[in-house]
C-alpha cells in the first residue's frame, strides 16, 4: 500500500522568476496565442450602436453592448473611447478603466448565440449512446444496414 507522502501536502510557495520560468511563459504565450482571436482594430459604431472588432485573420465581429456584460451599463460617450490594445489581446475602454479579453469576448458571442447553442445541443444529442439507440441500431442492421454508396460517375467526380 502506498502511503501519502507528506512533502506532497505542503502549501505551495512562490518561486523566484528565473530565465527558465520566463522562457516557459514565453513559449506558453506563443502556443496559446496561435489558437486565440486577436483584434487588429476595435471601435464603437455610433450609427448602429454596436461594438465592432476586426480580427487579425480578417473577420469582423459586432455586437450590441447589451450582449457584453462588462459593457451593459456603458454610455455611448464612454464607448466612443473603445479601442484595441497594441497587442490585440484585449479591448480597452479608458473611461471605465476596463480591459476586455478579445478571445473571451469572441468565444462568448459565438457560444451564446441561440443558433450555436441549438446546433451544439443537437450534436451532443447525436453523440449520446443509450440502450434504446443500440437496440434500434441493431434492428436497422438486421434490415441490411446503410445502403452501400454507389461508385461516383465520371460526371460526379468532376
Amino acid at each position, binding site marked *: 500500500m502506498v502511503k501519502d507522502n507528506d512533502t506532497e501536502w505542503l*502549501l*505551495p510557495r*512562490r518561486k523566484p*522568476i528565473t530565465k527558465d*520560468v520566463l522562457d516557459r*511563459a514565453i513559449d506558453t504565450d506563443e502556443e496559446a496565442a496561435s489558437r486565440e482571436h486577436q483584434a487588429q482594430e476595435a471601435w464603437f459604431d455610433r450609427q448602429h450602436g454596436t461594438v465592432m472588432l476586426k480580427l487579425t485573420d480578417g473577420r469582423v465581429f459586432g455586437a450590441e453592448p447589451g450582449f457584453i456584460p462588462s459593457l451593459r451599463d456603458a454610455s455611448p460617450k464612454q464607448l466612443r473611447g473603445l479601442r484595441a490594445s*497594441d497587442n490585440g489581446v484585449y479591448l480597452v475602454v479608458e473611461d471605465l*478603466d476596463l*480591459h476586455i479579453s478579445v478571445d*473571451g469576448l469572441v468565444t462568448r458571442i459565438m457560444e451564446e448565440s441561440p443558433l450555436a447553442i441549438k446546433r451544439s445541443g443537437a450534436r451532443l444529442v447525436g453523440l449520446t449512446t443509450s440502450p434504446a439507440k443500440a437496440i434500434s441500431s441493431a434492428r436497422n442492421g438486421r434490415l441490411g444496414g446503410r445502403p452501400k454508396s454507389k461508385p461516383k460517375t465520371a460526371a460526379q467526380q468532376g
Partner: protein
Amino acid sequence: MFIGAEDHPPPHVHAVHSGEGWVARFRFSFLSDVTGLYRFRRRGRRPTGATLDRVADAIMANLPACRENWWATHGSRHEIGLVNRRVETRSIVGGDGFLAKVGLKPSKAAVGIVSAGYDSGSGRTALILEDGRTLSLTAGLHIEEAAEW
C-alpha cells in the same frame, strides 16, 4: 495591472509595461497564497527577473483583492479554475480542520469538483463535489498545484 473582463481561467492578473512593450500574465489561486508567471509577451527587450519578481510580490500582497476582483468579474460563470479538477482531503489540526489538495496528478481518492464559488467577505472558497459534498475552505490555507509555482 488589471484583471480582464470576459477572460478565460485560470484566474490571472495582467501586468503591462507600455514603455518596455511587454505584457505578463500572473496566475493566482483561490486555494493557496501563491502566484506564478503564466504567460509573457514582449515586443522589445526582456525585463529582468527582479522586475517581474516585484510584480509578483505586489500580487502576493493583494491576493484577497485579486480574488475578489476575479470573482466579481467572472463569478457569474463560475470560472475560478477549479471546476472539473479533482480534490482530495486529509485531516489536520488547526486551520479548517482539514487540508484540501487539488493536485496536478490527483490520486484515486480525489473527487471531481462540479462547482466552485468564492465569498470575498469571509475569504472562503466553496467547492461542490460530484459525490454531493460541499467543502468550505479558507483561501490561502489549502493546496492548488500548478506548473507555474
